[in-house]
């Protein structure tokens, strides 16, 4: 058994998309054995999802395919539950119950099981059966209404941000439940409404409303109280720098770098309040100046003078960034479809037990020998009968015999 924080913890992963798989991936990179259980009829033998972006969320995991819509499939799944610690799912609220796999059913098989459910809106309430995507949740919690230009419409924030939020909250809850179980022997049911977890992201706006009945409006990049606080154009095509001046000292330092001591002495800009009132003028002056410079060079100059400044990095710039390189942040994985490429590494670095990036996403059903044969001790005949009944399938399927790409072999990542 490898010596990682979650060595010996086995997770059955029924989750799909980003939120759920991100949660279980966090566990998988810290030593948990995460076994994906998917529907065999999607695409036997092909990578779990042909979209390799989704595959990024399924690194380090094992894969079996079981048809849970059959009684024998449910029975087989329960056998896996009896040797597992955690079951994670993000189906809509009724699904697991309809399959006969709700918490009470799983508890009957394994009394200390920890079950994490991630229904979009929760398993009660008027929206219980509503369909949630991260992008729908993002809007519903008020984030979109408050993001955007002062003179523009509500904007999405690019990524489906409620998803990694829910994934992290889910991992937190599973780790808490494991901690409690070690102390007491008890498992539990965990219900994570993505709508609820994402609503906490708006806490500043919510508190202003509940305390003062005030409703904020979109304000671009403006800060509540300090200025300048904006994104400024730099040399080149679509190149920007973020500058945030939070006190008088930083203002004087900025003026110094700009060679504009007249601005430092200008009464219009003499203190925080004055700069806030005149930020349009200040921003115009700064923008006229920043245009001349490369945004990385300018950031270094400003930071050296003690001014908070950051180049607005695009994805190729992130790959070339000296700080991320010095910290070895990007990790190479072997994806079964797209081959070797960089993905973002761990966002928590543990000094004694760093995160492991062992292999790329599994092919659907790839680990049947290990999971059914070794872990459950099922005979070859038993497995063949189940395959004939369509409950599981033979890997690799005949049409893919000899065609599994080399990346499907379990190679270590670097």
């Amino acid at each position, binding site marked *: 058994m490898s010596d990682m924080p979650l060595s010996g913890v086995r997770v059955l992963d029924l989750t799909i998309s980003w939120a759920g798989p991100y949660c279980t991936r966090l566990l998988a990179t*810290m030593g948990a054995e995460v076994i994906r259980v998917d529907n065999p009829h999607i695409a036997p033998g092909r990578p779990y999802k042909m979209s390799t972006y989704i595959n990024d969320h399924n690194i380090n995991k094992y894969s079996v395919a079981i048809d849970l819509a059959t009684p024998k499939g449910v029975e087989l799944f329960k056998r896996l539950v009896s040797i597992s610690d955690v079951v994670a799912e993000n189906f809509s609220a009724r699904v697991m119950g309809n399959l006969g796999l709700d918490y009470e059913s799983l508890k009957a098989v394994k009394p200390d099981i920890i079950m994490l459910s991630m229904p979009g809106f929760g398993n009660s309430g008027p929206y219980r059966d509503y369909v949630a995507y991260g992008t729908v949740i993002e809007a519903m919690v008020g984030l979109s*209404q408050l993001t955007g230009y002062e003179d523009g419409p509500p904007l999405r924030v690019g990524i489906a941000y409620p998803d990694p939020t829910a994934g992290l909250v889910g991992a937190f809850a599973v*780790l808490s439940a494991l901690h409690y179980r070690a102390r007491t022997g008890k498992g539990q049911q965990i219900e994570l409404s993505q709508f609820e977890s994402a609503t906490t992201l708006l*806490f500043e706006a*919510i508190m202003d409303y509940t305390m003062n009945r005030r409703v904020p409006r979109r304000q671009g990049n403006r800060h509540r109280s300090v200025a300048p606080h904006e994104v400024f154009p730099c040399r080149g095509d679509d190149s920007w720098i973020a500058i945030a001046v939070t006190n008088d000292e930083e203002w004087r330092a900025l003026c110094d770098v700009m060679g504009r001591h007249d601005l430092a002495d200008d009464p219009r800009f003499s203190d925080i309040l004055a700069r806030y009132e005149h930020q349009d003028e200040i921003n115009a002056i700064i923008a006229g100046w920043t245009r001349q410079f490369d945004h990385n060079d300018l950031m270094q100059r400003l930071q050296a003078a003690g*001014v908070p400044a950051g180049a607005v990095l695009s994805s190729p710039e992130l790959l070339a960034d000296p700080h991320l390189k010095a910290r070895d942040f990007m990790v190479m994985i072997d994806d079964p479809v797209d081959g070797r490429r960089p993905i973002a590494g761990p966002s928590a670095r543990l000094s004694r037990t760093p995160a492991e990036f062992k292999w790329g996403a599994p092919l659907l059903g790839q680990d049947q020998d290990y999971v059914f044969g070794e872990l459950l001790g099922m005979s070859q005949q038993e497995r063949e009968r189940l395959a004939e009944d369509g409950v599981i399938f033979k890997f690799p399927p005949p049409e893919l015999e000899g065609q599994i790409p080399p990346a499907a072999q379990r190679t270590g990542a670097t």
Partner: protein
Amino acid sequence: MTEGALDDLVVLDLTHYIAGPFCTKLLADYGATVIKIERPDGGDPARRLPPFFQDDPSLEKSGVFLYLNTNKKGITLNLKTETGRALFKQLVRRADIVVESFSPRVMPGWGLDYEALAKINPRLVMTSISNFGQNGPYRDYKATELVSLALGGWLYFIGEPDRYPVKPFGRQSQHHAGLQAAVGTLTAVQYQQRTGLGQHVDISIMEAVTSILEFTFHVLATQNRVRTRDGSRYFITHPLTILPCKDGHVAVTAIGRAWELASVLMELPQLVEDPRFADPRRRWEMADEIDKLMIGWLTQHNAQEIFERGQELRVPIGLVPTIDQVVNDPQHRSRDFFTTVDHPATGPVEYPGPPVRMYETPWRAGRAPLLGEHNEEVFCGWLGLSKEHLLQLRERNVI
């Protein structure tokens, strides 16, 4: 009285502002004993952040501070003094976890780096949250939310294609880093409980952002596409966007099976009949035409109607509410999501409730501490100092 999942854990909390306190709030809300250690003069600078209760800028009325520091005990301690640091080390002996969010030079400068604390308590898990991590060329750079979003790579692709990048509302990079820190901390605690060995957990706010950029690195590697601003569109598929309706906006996701269902909802047979829209992988290129058709119908109907009828048909539609509408949302109300917290400085106020519901070990509601509120409990009760000693320490500005 129900138990908390983390009841047996003692956390020394040296964090301030947003990211660190959000991490330790999670630990406290789910049962851990969290001792928030603040500087005697003014405490956590977050106490100065608006919005204030009734716009009264008192140290006990910041809505940001009040929300982020629920369920914590509050003590004051001046770590710039040797006596203060000695008292801290005494507390470290009894702690499972230390969380701090100073600039990386500070704790080592005080002789309170991980190696020093591990000598006192080899089991200790120490979590350090900083803008750029504990090493690297940007380690000592100054950052605010806007700067972290810029260097993390997220800011670049939020906004309209022909305008400047614009940030998400709030302090999302710091909030997110706080969550990453909570997960990293509990992961290290798993190892600690099993082996008796602690470790150092290093969280960089910049890397927390870069680790959630979704398909950004994927499209760069496989299609040589640089992810950039696309308004509310999703850059790799359509429609997944925000569109105007009669009385505001709605979020429309009509991918996969929802495409056909959306054409029924919006009475737009053209969507399924026009051969230009037939290939789902090409709809992103036809986004302008598709949006024009949908907007034609949407602007004839109110958001609430679109939301209800759409969801009935299983089309993932969302409202785009203002914050008062979110607080009064019927789903939140039916599940009692908002929780009333009473506090001496504000009286009862509604706060957001549990981000996750644990059935055996539920989340607990609680309030933030007053500055130095638990000095006697901790210094006298835990460390055995006399009250007179406490008064002397106060006079000397150690607490």
